[in-house]
């Protein structure tokens, strides 16, 4: 008979999601089923997550179809034609009316000039070495600020957007607002030569003649880090946009990579045999390639993943070259009296011969020296700073055609700019999170070596283990001496055949006295968890003596033949 209480056993038949909450797109194929997972609840959860991930991946692929603009290009029709033969006049004629505005010549006194675009490519800041500073919206031609600073200026950069810019002047770095009003004199940055702004960390980095790399947080005003490079005056600085690591090129040919939290370079390579003069990191491949140029006239492309030699290198005429990669991977090289542009697959494919890669575009500029090359974000424009001002040329295919309004929008209005500033501040990443691999955040932590097992038994709770045991479990205990002692005792115990396991006290008692006792005692006392150089040296010495003893014993037993003395032995080190 069924008890009335058992009538509660009615199961719900339909527990599906209401229609309004179900996803619209059909379920994706090839989703892992996690059949190996026993736990039903976990398996369901994993399946759901996998389906969600697959679905969103498919949706992202769909979204690529919605990208509106197409990248510019120059395409040859026959094999005999070469794109580099096309001059700027032809390109301007082939370009649309709006795009043709990009071809400009700014004739200015007080050069040579350097320039910098804002992150959305709308605004341009220029600085002449004699102290002429100007920022303007180059599309509408609206001037924001123009200053005659009357002293040597070496570099300029916008901060988070066009409303602030920093200038590396003769003695210090100064920050000006959009209208050119001096806001801050950063006295910590002495004799700066190059500036970089890390937009997601709100860090202004400068490197100067004294060889110090300094990071200043522009949202709080604190100096975050000061690194002494110990490599003298530095005139080359570039940032990797994907991991915010700064690349420094030094006058002895060394390129060093820096993060704020490590006081020494994370990577150091000898790149050139003379001073490094140009440096740039490829943003189109996630910061995978770095290009350097030296005063020796050599340009090298490096693979930042392994640093095993260069991917490609070639020699240019005309001495030191300025470099910059564009957002789509075109490398602009300003050397001698002309600018050359190389494009992507060829400069990144390994090539043994030291021949230059096929040229994409070239443009002569008769105003030496050429001191800066900058690609304009989201435009096919390359701006070259030189002695007589600035020249902008069109490089079809250099710019990323589709911008994202949440990151950088050339058409943003005042309200959007303000909104983005606040959002940027809220999302500010802490400086100590800069690492070579930016994906370590949110990745699985490496498996810990912690285990509560002692001799593979999980009896005692970890917290209740004695300290040494705990250290041993953690792999932190210094057990070198203990093992040696046991070995020796075992060797000594070989004489009497009854191999009973002896207690520690017994061992100690039966130990032969007098042989290196003081050294042993010393080492026993040194059994701590700090690596001491003296203890290490003594240990090495003991090890050596033991090895000699072992060899002598082996020779005595006839297992090994004694080495005959040679005439060359006199040259051996003791």
């Amino acid at each position, binding site marked *: 008979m069924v008890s009335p209480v058992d009538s509660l056993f009615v199961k719900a038949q339909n527990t599906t999601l209401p229609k309004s909450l179900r996803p619209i797109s059909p379920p994706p194929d090839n989703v892992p089923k996690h059949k190996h997972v026993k736990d039903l609840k976990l398996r369901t959860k994993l399946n759901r997550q996998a389906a969600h991930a697959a679905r969103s991946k498919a949706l992202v692929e769909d979204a690529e179809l919605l990208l509106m603009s197409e990248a510019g*290009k120059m395409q040859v029709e026959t094999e005999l034609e070469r794109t580099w033969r096309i001059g700027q006049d032809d390109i301007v004629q*082939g370009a649309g009316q709006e795009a043709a505005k990009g071809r400009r010549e700014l004739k200015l006194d007080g050069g040579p000039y350097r320039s910098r675009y804002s992150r959305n490519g709308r605004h341009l800041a220029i600085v002449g070495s004699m102290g002429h500073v100007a920022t303007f919206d180059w599309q509408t031609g609206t001037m924001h600020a123009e200053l005659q600073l009357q002293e040597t200026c070496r570099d300029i950069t916008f901060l988070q957007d066009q409303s602030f810019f920093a200038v590396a002047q003769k003695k210090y770095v100064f920050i000006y607002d959009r209208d050119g009003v001096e806001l801050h004199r950063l006295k910590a940055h002495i004799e700066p030569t190059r500036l970089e702004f890390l937009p*997601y960390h709100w860090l202004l980095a400068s490197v100067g003649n004294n060889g110090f790399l300094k990071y200043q947080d522009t949202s709080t005003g604190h100096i975050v880090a000061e690194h002494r490079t110990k490599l003298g005056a530095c005139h080359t600085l570039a940032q990797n946009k994907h991991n915010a690591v700064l690349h420094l090129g030094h006058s002895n040919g060394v390129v060093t990579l820096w993060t704020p939290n490590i006081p020494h370079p994370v990577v150091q390579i000898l790149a050139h045999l003379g001073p490094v003069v140009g440096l740039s990191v490829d943003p189109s491949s996630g910061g995978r390639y770095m290009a350097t140029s030296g005063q020796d006239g050599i340009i090298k492309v490096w693979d930042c993943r392994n640093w095993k030699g260069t991917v490609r290198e070639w020699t240019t005429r005309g001495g030191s070259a300025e470099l910059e990669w564009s957002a789509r991977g075109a490398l602009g090289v300003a050397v001698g009296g002309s600018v050359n542009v190389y494009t992507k697959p060829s400069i990144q494919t390994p090539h043994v011969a030291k021949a230059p890669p096929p040229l994409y575009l070239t443009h002569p500029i008769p105003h030496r020296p050429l001191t800066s090359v900058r690609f304009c974000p989201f435009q096919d424009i390359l701006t070259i700073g030189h002695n007589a001002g600035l020249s902008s040329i069109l490089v079809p295919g250099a710019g990323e055609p589709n911008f994202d*309004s949440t990151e950088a*929008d*050339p058409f943003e209005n005042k309200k959007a700019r303000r909104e983005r500033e606040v959002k940027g501040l809220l999302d500010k990443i802490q400086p100590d999170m800069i690492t070579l691999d930016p994906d370590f955040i949110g990745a699985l932590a490496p498996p810990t070596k912690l285990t509560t097992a002692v001799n593979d038994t999980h009896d005692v*709770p970890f917290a209740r283990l004695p300290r040494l045991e705990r250290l041993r479990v953690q792999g932190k205990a210094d057990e070198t001496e203990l093992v040696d002692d046991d070995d020796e005792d075992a060797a000594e115990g070989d004489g009497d055949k009854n191999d009973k396991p002896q207690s520690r006290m017994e061992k100690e008692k039966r130990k032969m006295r007098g042989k290196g006792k003081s050294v042993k005692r010393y080492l026993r006392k040194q059994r701590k968890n700090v690596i001491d150089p003296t203890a290490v040296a003594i240990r090495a010495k003991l090890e050596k003596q033991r090895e000699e003893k072992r060899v002598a014993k082996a020779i005595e037993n006839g297992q090994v033949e004694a080495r005959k003395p040679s005439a060359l032995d006199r040259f051996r080190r003791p």
Partner: protein
Amino acid sequence: MVKISVLQHAPSVHLPARPGDPTPTTRNLDPLMHPFARARERNRALNAAKMDRLFAKPFVGALEGHIDAVEVLCKKPGSLSAVASGSWDGGVILHNVSERKHIRRIQGAHEGKVSGLCFAQDDRLLSCGVDSKIKLWDASPQDDITDQRPLNEYPGKSPFNSIDHHRSDPLFATASNLVQIWDETKSAAVSNLTFPTSTETITSVRFNLSETSVLGSIGSDRTFTLYDIRTGKAERRVVMQMGSNALAWSPTFPTNVLLASEDHNLYTFDVRQLKTPTHIYKGHVAAVMSCDWSPTGLEFVSGGWDRTVRIWKEGQGTGPEVYHTKRMQRVSSSIFTADARFVLTGSDDGNVRIWKAKASEKLGIITARERAAIEYRDTLKDRWKHDNEVGRIQRNRHLPKPVYQAAKLKRTMLDSRAVKEERRRKHTRVGESKPNAERKKVVIAEQT
């Protein structure tokens, strides 16, 4: 000829067509366009977790009126605002929670404390007390408060501890030294239900919400008993290690019952399988005095002798939300409101307090954008909860010092007990004593 095309953005596409129009936005989901996406998202999750704690102000207000400890609270079925509270001074107050006003106030409803309250049909209220009386009151709003007489009075033989009304029929059950079923129209009990051999005092009785003729009770013999009014007898009973103080049937999963135990824990049982509880909820540092399910059946609230209110998620045995104030004393009754947004607690200091069920929820009108932002933040918090920093902020709760110390002491005691047990096991013969699962320690015997 060389084909040349140069990139250009048409301003007409990217600028508003007319002044006042929103500026068009474009998206490019290429990961290279979004450097540090993960780091920034983590940052946002961290901010969301911090904001969540920043806005965690759960106390909404207090309903005053009682001059002694509040013993019992009950909500009116089908109403969002009507709540009745009974006190040790014998008074019963009907509150309008949304307006925080008294609908009706009955002073001296019983001699001694009011031990049970429940709503009957047609806007009437049943109360029982330790004066061995059950009274039926009119619970409709009235202007003159002079009329303090009950509609009906049912005399009992012994002091009552609890009362509960049948879901649909005009029946109600009371708990004294036995469970009695009463008809609203008859002055004597219709039937007496008791487990054959039991001599205990029944402390609480509750009708199942879905299988309406089944009722459960807890008693002073550390028992939980199931009855059926159709057969008119006790069906099953379990004796537990420690007694329970309150029970509540799940509103959405009819076989689930929640017991608030004297041993600081809460247990859910599946009545089909009474040998072990389905879940143990650990967190209180003193006896749990009351519990109530959220109408969604996904959460429940408990109030304890440790002067804290805790809100638990079903199936998640640790880390509940903890509410406390300096002035709140031992919490003797706690209920969820019918919209699952608020929690009411009655405590020894004579106040009925209103708390938010979600501590950082914003009250009032929420715009669509705000709602979207809240949902985004919730998702972020959930996605990054395994991050050390985010998780720590999310989990951390400030506790009053005595509660914190008691929890610490309790943890120490339990740890050392576990270690002692482990050592004992280590030194007995292999296989002689096996570790006992925590869930199997709860029930001593199951009787039918």
